[in-house]
């Protein structure tokens, strides 16, 4: 465990060795990150960079895009360079959650057609200069047949060899289903995060998706259980997280409780992890991002809510 020390808000933390792949030319100067929350400690990056993570679920509406946005921004806040790819070709949503919908001018389709370069299609977040968004296509656009998976592979290779340096994380937001879009999204990935909710329909679809991922050679799969309600678990109206884990047999990356702030953050284009004070779901996303960096998993899970013991003076509004 690293000794507690303040790390600077610049893109390069002082105790990480410089990347040997950088060009002689001085890299483009980046503005320092202005953060509402600063951590005195940084997670230890495990595995080879860039780590290509696909966030998938099978069933739609379980929180893939929300997880991608919040985990991606958490990673950027920890000081890692992140590229988030919205691989949903027909229905693009990641830019809305991040509040970058007005800044997406070029997509991967334009890059493939030669209308722009790859760096022109990357949208850099002004709040976090080390977080970039890349959308596959605009609505009503079409990709040539057979280009999907290959295109993503080319993109990853191009990102690895770009002048600014290879990103630490490439996070791919997978579309729902197990169609061609899913196959395209998982092509370049070497690890996966499966998002599910504790209901039987999502679990069945999740099990199928895990099977397909394992057939495709992705073995490092971790699970995020979203929209957990401890009151329903206590009333035995909802499966507990341990039950979900027993059914799917995956290690846990995070447990996200049901939080109405998710809807507000979605509508405002302000990700949850940037709230101050942090919300319950925001803290859970930050913890999940930490575990993702360290390739760790949860050792204990939240079961139910306990009534808080209140002191004598709580009666007076304490």
């Amino acid at each position, binding site marked *: 465990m690293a000794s507690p020390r303040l790390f600077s808000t610049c893109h390069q933390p002082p105790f990480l060795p410089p990347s040997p792949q950088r060009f002689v030319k001085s890299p483009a100067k980046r503005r320092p990150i202005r953060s509402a929350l600063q951590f005195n400690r940084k997670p230890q990056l495990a595995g080879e960079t860039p780590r290509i993570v696909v966030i998938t679920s099978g069933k739609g509406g379980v929180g893939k895009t929300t997880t991608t946005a919040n985990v991606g921004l958490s990673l950027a806040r920890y000081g890692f360079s992140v590229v988030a790819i919205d691989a949903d070709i027909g229905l693009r949503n990641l830019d809305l959650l991040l509040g970058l919908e007005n800044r997406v001018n070029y997509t991967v389709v334009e890059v493939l057609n030669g209308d722009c370069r790859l760096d022109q299609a990357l949208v850099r977040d002004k709040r976090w200069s080390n977080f970039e968004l890349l959308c596959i296509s605009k609505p009503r656009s079409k990709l040539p047949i057979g280009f999907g998976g290959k295109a993503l592979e080319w993109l990853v290779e191009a990102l690895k060899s770009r002048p600014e340096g290879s990103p630490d994380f490439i996070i791919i937001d997978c579309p729902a289903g197990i169609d061609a879009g899913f196959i395209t999204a998982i092509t370049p990935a070497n690890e996966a995060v499966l998002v599910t909710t504790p209901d039987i329909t999502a679990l069945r679809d999740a099990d199928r998706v895990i099977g397909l991922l394992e057939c495709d050679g992705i073995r490092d799969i971790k699970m995020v259980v979203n929209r957990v309600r401890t009151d329903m678990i206590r009333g035995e109206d909802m499966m507990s997280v341990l039950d979900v884990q027993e059914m799917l047999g995956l290690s846990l990356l995070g447990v996200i409780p049901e939080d109405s702030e998710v809807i507000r953050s979605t509508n405002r284009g302000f990700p949850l992890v940037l709230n101050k004070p942090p919300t319950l779901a925001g803290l859970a996303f930050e913890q999940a991002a930490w575990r993702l960096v360290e390739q760790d998993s949860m050792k204990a*899970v939240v079961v139910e809510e306990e009534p808080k013991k209140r002191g004598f003076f709580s009666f007076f509004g304490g």
Partner: protein
Amino acid sequence: MASIDSLRFHSLCNLQSSIGRSKLQIPSSLVVFRRRHKNLNWVQVQTNQRFVCKSIGDESSTPDEETQNDDNEEDDAVSTQSNTATDSETSISRFRSMITTIANDSENSISRLGSMVATLPPVVFLMNKCSGNSVWIGISIVATVLLASIRAYAIRKSRDNRPAGSVSDLVRRGQLRSGDRRGISKAMNYEDPFNNPFVKVGKGSSTVEMCGKVYKLAPVTLTEKEQSIHQKRRSRAYQWKRPTVFLKEGDSIPPDVDPDTVRWIPANHPFATTVSDIDQDLAQNNVYQKQGVPFRIRAEHEAMQKKLEALQNEEKLNNLGIDSQNARDFQRPYKFSSKLEEDENVQKNSQENHTGDSSSEETQKS
């Protein structure tokens, strides 16, 4: 003396009644003052001495026993009326002793009562001691409760009246910090997401408090053996090959392609295009391009340039001027009458004038 004695006894009776009238239930008929004629036979005052003793000291006596005692005492009173005067002195002495014992008993009863009061709860005792401050204590307690209720009501009221969707609402929820807008915000320093003021793990790691809510924790029980069992189950249930060939519905499968690797795309799917305008190599080069103008824009630019050059060349050709002397060489020779010769002369003269003008113009221009 009789009057004094009567007065004393009367005072004693009053004392008895004040100590415990309800319990004692001394009927007035038991206390009889009988005056004998001239004999000064004192009335054999038969008080229910035993009853009095029982009322003060003995609490175990029952009312039935007390009535029996009363009856017994009445019989004794009747029997003593027939005593002679010689017994009066003994009765007087006896009476005096009885009075002294009653007095002693009353003093004992008073002291016992005082001890009973002293054993009461200290709060009541304190209140008796500080009776003046209890009012203020009660007032302060009531005021505190009132303040707490007013505060809770005011908070609820302000929450309901707060406008939704305003900038102040965003600031209140923490999604927009007023300090950020003014550039004077301070960052919150956390150790890490697991160790900060919003996440507190309870003693023994059995509970965790997150954002003010306490949750019970349970350890994860999934083992590696169970994970491998699940993996084997899924490998048996789902057998899938990655599709490498994407074909539109209706297309024929190429001969050297495995049918399991073919993926059929519906016509209305975003992956289905009518014409593939670009080849893979070119697309890959476009993706890998890091500097310069993108391919299509460069191609369009070059095409525009070529078109412009072609247009310019065409204009140059159009701008070439026709020379009159040269034009004459192209004329056909005339083979007609003198009229035509005169016309030729006129034309010559006019040409000479024209050339003379043109030469003068050229000299002027140069």
